């Protein structure tokens, strides 16, 4: 398959958050600020990339009937690696995301890409797909985190530009749904889906 097409699909036409609507737990949970969204996006990107790589390498070795448990073990290993490394070397980010890192394992985006793409395509395509989907996910999380941070705390990436407390609803859970709804609508309008 054409690599450019895979990249375009991952970031735009099949954007995991705004088009596929996959992995919404971290999308709604951690996007209270642009920095948190970006960090979560990068963590997921790493896991997607590595698990797509490994799954596509071992796909012929794994018998069909045990492929899901095998893939999950691979994904869980990479998630734990991310968790330990982040706690050791980026303790501030870990404080903010700690609770959500183990949940990358059950992020349907990661298993979905392993099962639907990496296990059926060659290694290079699988890695490209993991990278593109990861970038699409990161951009979406950063955008939603940025929107919620701007409206909710009048700041972006921690830099406050207006004094005051902001619209609290955008920091709380309902703001995530409202923000995601509007961003999805705008995104689909922009790419001409509806």
């Amino acid at each position: 398959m054409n690599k450019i097409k895979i990249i375009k699909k991952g970031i735009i036409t099949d954007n995991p958050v705004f088009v596929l609507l996959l992995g919404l737990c971290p999308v709604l949970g951690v996007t209270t600020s642009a920095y948190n969204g970006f960090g979560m996006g990068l963590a997921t990107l790493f896991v997607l990339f590595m698990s797509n790589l490994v799954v596509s390498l071992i796909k012929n070795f794994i018998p069909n009937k045990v492929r899901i448990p095998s893939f999950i073990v691979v994904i869980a290993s990479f998630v734990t690696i991310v968790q330990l490394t982040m706690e050791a070397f980026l303790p501030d980010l870990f404080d903010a995301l700690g609770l959500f890192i183990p949940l990358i394992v059950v992020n349907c985006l990661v298993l979905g890409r392993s099962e639907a793409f990496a296990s059926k395509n060659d290694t290079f395509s699988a890695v490209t797909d993991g990278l593109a989907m990861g970038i699409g996910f990161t951009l979406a999380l950063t955008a939603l985190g940025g929107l919620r941070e701007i409206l909710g705390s009048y700041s972006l990436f921690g830099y406050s530009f207006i004094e005051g407390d902001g619209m609290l609803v955008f920091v709380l859970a309902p703001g995530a749904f409202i923000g995601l709804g509007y961003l999805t609508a705008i995104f689909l309008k922009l790419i001409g889906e509806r």
Partner: protein
Amino acid sequence: MAKRESTFANMVSTLLIVAGVAAFTLSMVYNVTKGPIERGRYERKQAAISFVVPEFDQLKSKNFLPPEGRDSLEFNLAYKNGELVGIAVQTYTNTGFSGYISAMVGFYPDGTIYDVVHLEHAETPGLGDKIEKDKSDWSDQFKDFDPSEKSLKLKQDQGDVDGITAATITARAYCDAINRAYVTLTENIDESHFKLEE
């Protein structure tokens, strides 16, 4: 390479190998990251202790059980030239808006609070996280707070502590944590406990 058949032997061996490789890799990563993780936790705790007690040159820790609750509190006794100058108590509460909150509360030897700093919490960003020192100066009101004269309760609970707007539960829980430290301290405020042993 052709795809392997789903025979019993193939399935068992595959799962064994996948799990084995994963376990081995994780143990390697764990070994590498164990040091930095522990050092980070230790440093954060030491920083919290030196933040909530006056200057000291020697530290001794001791555990005491609070009157309510099962987990004991860690008392870090700070000495300067052999003289007790402060007590940093690592305390907790389970009544936060998102459950567990832990904090380090520093007392002068007479029971007056020197300073308070949070250790862990999962409170709402933008509301409950005002208990953090770098987010708001709310917790500065505990400086030189004397719990024997004033009550460690929120003003709306007939106490002497200002609440946090829109985060009353968090503020109440934080007071509960500090109060737990104070009550445990007064229960055990026996000279013999706090002497620096030779």
